[in-house]
């Protein structure tokens, strides 16, 4: 009978009310994200702030949305110089394929979800920027194989 059903429904809502809210008061308390939660792509850096990117272009090819843009110049001595690794955060669907594809573990998925931006320009982030200050250090090791810039190109990234 639906008279009984109504009473049962009322009982359930009252039970919920007495059970108290389950709300997370977001700015004041936060949910602990699962370990493998994926948000914007970030560059892995060690303590000195150095990254491991070799400009191998694997991530760029792996990205299904074509949002990664890596531009590098090869110097005369065959050394690669990353001009920029541009990342369009606004179009990223955070699938993590670039991270899986990277053979040097230079990328990771960030856990920062406070990504809201006020202008469209901020949605495009340069993950790696080659700066002029890094040039002398690179020049010293010019003969070496360009494997994982240990300290040669300091990433002055403006990542979010």
């Amino acid at each position, binding site marked *: 009978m639906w008279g009984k059903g*109504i009473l049962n*429904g*009322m009982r*359930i*809502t009252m039970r*919920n009310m007495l*059970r*108290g*809210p389950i709300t997370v*008061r977001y700015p004041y308390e936060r949910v602990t994200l699962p370990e493998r939660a994926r948000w914007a792509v970030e560059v892995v850096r060690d303590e000195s702030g150095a990254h491991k990117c070799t400009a191998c272009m694997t991530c760029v090819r792996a990205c299904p949305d074509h949002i990664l843009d890596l531009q590098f110049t090869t110097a005369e001595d065959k050394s690669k110089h990353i001009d920029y690794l541009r990342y369009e955060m606004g179009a990223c669907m955070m699938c993590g394929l670039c991270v899986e594809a990277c053979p040097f573990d230079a990328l990771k998925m960030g856990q920062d979800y406070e990504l809201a931006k006020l202008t469209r320009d901020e949605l495009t982030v340069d993950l790696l920027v080659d700066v002029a200050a890094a040039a002398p250090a690179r020049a010293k090791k010019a003969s070496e194989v360009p494997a994982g810039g240990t300290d040669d190109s300091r990433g002055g990234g403006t990542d979010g």
Partner: protein
Amino acid sequence: MSPELASLLRILAAVGLMLMNGVILIYMLRRVLGRLHQRLGPVHVGPQGLLQTPMDVLKLLTKEDITPTNVDKALYFIAPAAVFTPSLMAYAAIPFSPTWMVTDLDTGLLYTLVVMSLVSMGLLMAGWASANKWSLIGGMRSVGQHIAYEIPLLLSVLPVVMYVGTLNLSSIVEAQSGTWLGILPQWFITNPLFWPAFIIFIVSALIKVNQTPFDMSEAESELVAGFATEYSSMKFGLFFLSEFSNSFIVSALAVTLFFGGWTLPFVPDEVLAPIAPVVFMLKVYVGIFVLMWIRGTLPRVRMDHLMQFAWKILIPAVLTWILVFGFIIKLFDLGRPVG
């Protein structure tokens, strides 16, 4: 004080009460619905979110007031007032205490119900004037359900009138003072004879409140916002205010008719007299809480089921009950006419 000034002040007090009620009830609704959903409701603006509704009102007041191109201008402007005025008028006969009422109408019960029935005309006006199919359907639905449930609502209070022999609301309250056998308060709700009438009254009174399960006229999943679709800023605020004021009136009527109004059992009159309005308001707010509880629980009824329920079940049921009730109180001589 001249009687004209006194009545003017009373009207102003009713307006103030209505506005305050609107502000408090919106806050209360959001908190109660929040808790029923295991949420918090507004908490961040002001202490415990108390400033939330004043902020909403302020925002609505400073919002742009749009008049869409194709609307019927005159009716579009009159409609919010036509909805607001009857729900304000309905405060006139409610007895808050033996002395606190706008006017002691001899036909108070009938007056309140009749005035409440005019609200739906304003809604139809708004629906027609908006030049929007959703508004029109919302207005038609609103009038349809109000008309259908008007009859069981009016008939369901008849047992009380037959028992007490008056339409005066404060006399009805006075008839409920005292106790049964010194244990139960002598409210009509403690008398099993009134339970069928009470159930029918609550079901039909829920229509007046215009909220789920009977919010057919502004069903958001079907009709955008029903009759209020084209209304912005404070015009929409007036619809909102009238709706919340209606829920206050309905609850006040239920308290007056079945829950003893401002009376309390076991409390001597000298103690009760100064706190009577507070007692009444507390009872009314408990009633409003139950309305909100129902709102937070039940899903929307389908329109044709709603109408069939009124015409085919509720009206025959209430007519039968009046007949049975009349026989009972005549045979056992139970009536207690006052005055």
